């Protein structure tokens, strides 16, 4: 008979080991899925997880892509993780990402075609502000009217998507190309272009911003009073109030930080790899970043590793589509399985599974 025993303290070993185990289980389950689709599982797994980096044929294209895909994931996840630690559940980073991109692109398009060094910094500020503003809607509704931030932030993603479509078709549409939706290509507007900083590496300003965010988040969570308050509020709300933490202020700060970082990610994307405001601009980074945050154990360093891994699955998925005609949804299934396995495995950080002899009543 199997019995579950609650551990006195959560197991440190399983906390670290579970993400790795979850990746392994995802590979195995994914392999079985590919086998059922009639593909060779070994080839498929290799194509997704190893070839983007190690293959000679694809590597030169894929390697820079890794940072391009991972940077927005890491940037968003770092912000989300701070909120998650405080029990503030921002599920709508995708929406804040879109609004940030629109604000950034809006500044660029307003200045077009003027040159000027100040345009790009202004876009950065606007992008962060856009994401912040969009996150303030659930924050204020929660603190004033006690609404649930999970629902409000999630539903605002769909509102943001409608706004994005309206902008791509209307206000921000490129007036020089009649009939096509989508804005001007910001990559062709030098003052607004988030260009590759070191050729062949994929490093753009978004990657730099992600690194800075990781360092700041790490320092904040381990050394700053705000990080201490975030953890207190998440673990013991009554103790937090005793310690002088105002719950409403914390909700605003957490949603504000994660919204601003998601907005930044959107702005760096639209001015660089994405290039223009299009209807299909949003590619799910805001949702995948939730997986990144959990896989990285809400820890800034862990999030870097998890972000690189999930970035890899994006590129590997594209390769798989190209080379093996894997369905495009396969990669979402992969990401979903990863979170699923992780949450299931996390059970054993708090519980011990015991096999006992005979039945107990």
């Amino acid at each position, binding site marked *: 008979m199997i019995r579950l025993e609650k551990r006195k303290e959560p197991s440190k070993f399983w906390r670290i080991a579970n993400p790795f185990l979850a990746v392994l289980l995802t590979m195995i389950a994914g392999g079985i899925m590919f086998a059922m689709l009639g593909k060779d599982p070994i080839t498929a797994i290799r194509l997704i997880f190893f070839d983007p980096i190690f293959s000679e044929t694809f590597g030169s294209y894929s390697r820079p892509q890794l940072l391009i895909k991972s940077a927005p994931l890491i940037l968003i996840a770092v912000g989300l993780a701070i909120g998650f630690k405080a029990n503030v559940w921002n599920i709508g980073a995708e929406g804040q990402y879109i609004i940030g991109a629109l604000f950034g692109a809006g500044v660029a398009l307003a200045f077009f075609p003027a040159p000027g060094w100040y345009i790009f910094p202004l876009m950065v500020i606007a992008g962060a502000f856009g994401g912040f503003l969009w996150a303030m809607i659930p924050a204020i509704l929660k603190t004033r009217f006690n609404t649930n931030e999970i629902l409000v932030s999630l539903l605002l993603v769909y509102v943001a998507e409608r706004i994005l479509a309206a902008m791509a078709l209307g206000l921000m549409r490129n007036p020089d190309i009649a009939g096509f939706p989508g804005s001007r290509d910001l990559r062709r507007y030098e003052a607004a272009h988030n260009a590759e900083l070191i050729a062949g590496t994929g490093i753009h300003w978004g990657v730099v911003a992600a690194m800075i965010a990781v360092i700041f988040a790490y320092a904040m969570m381990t050394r700053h009073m705000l990080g201490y308050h975030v953890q*207190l509020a998440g*673990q*013991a709300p009554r*103790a937090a109030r*005793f*310690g002088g933490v105002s719950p409403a202020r914390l909700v605003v700060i957490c949603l504000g930080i994660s919204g601003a970082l998601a907005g930044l990610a959107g702005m760096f994307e639209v001015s660089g790899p994405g290039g223009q405001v299009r209807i299909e601009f949003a590619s799910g980074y805001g949702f995948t970043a939730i997986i990144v945050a959990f896989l990285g154990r809400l820890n800034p360093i862990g999030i870097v590793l998890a972000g690189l891994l999930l970035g890899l699955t994006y590129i590997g998925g594209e390769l798989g589509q190209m080379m093996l005609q894997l369905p495009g949804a396969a990669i979402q299934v992969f990401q979903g399985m990863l979170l699923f396995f992780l949450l299931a495995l996390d059970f054993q950080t708090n519980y011990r599974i015991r096999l006992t002899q005979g039945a107990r009543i």
Partner: protein
Amino acid sequence: MRKPLLRLDGLTKAYPGVLANDDVSFEIGIGQMHALLGENGAGKSTLVKMIYGLVKPDKGQMVLRDQPYAPAQPSEARKNGVAMVFQHFSLFDALDVAENVALGMENPPAMRDLAKRIRDVSEEYGLPLDPNRLVGDLSAGERQRVEIVRCLLQDPKLLIMDEPTSVLTPQEVEILFRTLRQLSSEGTAILYISHKLEEIRALCDEATILRGGKKVATCDPREKSARELAELMVGQVLTPPERPAKPKGDVLLSVENLSLKSNNPFGTSIKDISFQLHAGEVLGIAGVAGNGQDELLLMLSGEIPSPAAQVKLKGQPIGQLGPNARRVRGLVTAPEERLGHAAAPDMSLTANALLSGAARKGLVKKGFIDWKKTDSFAREIIAKFDVRTPGTHVLARALSGGNLQKFVIGREIELAPDVIVVNQPTWGVDASAAAFIRQALLDLASAGAGVLVISQDLDELLEVADSFAALNEGRLTPVRPAKGLTVDEIGLMMGGAHDMHPAHEAAE
């Protein structure tokens, strides 16, 4: 010697890491009032859970009326005439008395019959109850009656009572005792669990004392002094705290017309509370649980703000200030609930030292935490207050209740406050640690601080307090000097018997 009703023979129960009961044997006679005495963690609860069928012993047997008795579950115990009144009531606020009683019965009769039986039984035993009243509207004493009447309806031969007087005023205790004596004279044995020695000496004719899971003695409590019983319980000689007499100083904390409307229909509102606390004074506030103690503490700590002038510290209005601003000005508090309120369970002791220490100890510079300094602050508390722990990295929830209490109270005392407010300072702490905490509070007062102790333990308050007031349904009585107060007077301050009638007066 009376005829035995229940004989326990070598009962042993081990939990991972602790031997809760070790070879415990004793007898309860028919109609006997038998006390089970011991400190927190001595194994009293485990023992009665075995008798009531909630826990199965590892070793040993029980014999009930000359028949082997091994209940697998409480319903089997009830069928054998064993009933139990728990310390924490299992009642639904939104249901009426009769409905609550019916919920605890195997085959409840029709509601109208049940209501009549409740009325009859409650009158017979001097515990008048209206079966149609909502439990949410009842006082703690009346709620306990519901539990007792629920047991009496099953005509028990053995009634187990777990710390029944912790929620009662002295007058209510007197009524309860008359009922218990009546039951005993009719042949119902009572197993009475408590650590209140005077009560046991007044009520019981035999006492079994447990210490560390083992039986240390069975004796007649009326032949021993309370002090002898306490020393048997604790296993060491106790010294009462010392306090040099000192004149009252300036007013440090003054509260004027403080009120708070509770937003919970069964919560307690604070009604127009006023008092003053002087330098060097220990003010004790008594009251039965749930009469506004928690709310008062939250309003003094700053977790619930009030109009600024209603709370003044050294003449300055602080009603609008939050907890840290009050700490900086010299007012610290220690709430009753240690785990989750006074300390964060999943954080280390170092991180918990920061919780209230941040504001007063200079542990934070420009928002950044000085972890080294914080850790040495935690070490200081551990050393001074004899907190038993392997180190400061240990999580708060891994500490035993008493050790965590020492840490929390120690943390606040180490902040060298001008005014300290503590709620239930020694709750769940063993006798020697309790004496240590009381002494530390007295030392703080003799060094010139104002000390406000909120407690449900009257003995504790009479031991430490210079002046005395009581909370009753959110109202505070006028403050009186503690010297010369009798238990009767205190009982009346706590609300007397809440208009309940004693046994027999009602029946006759």
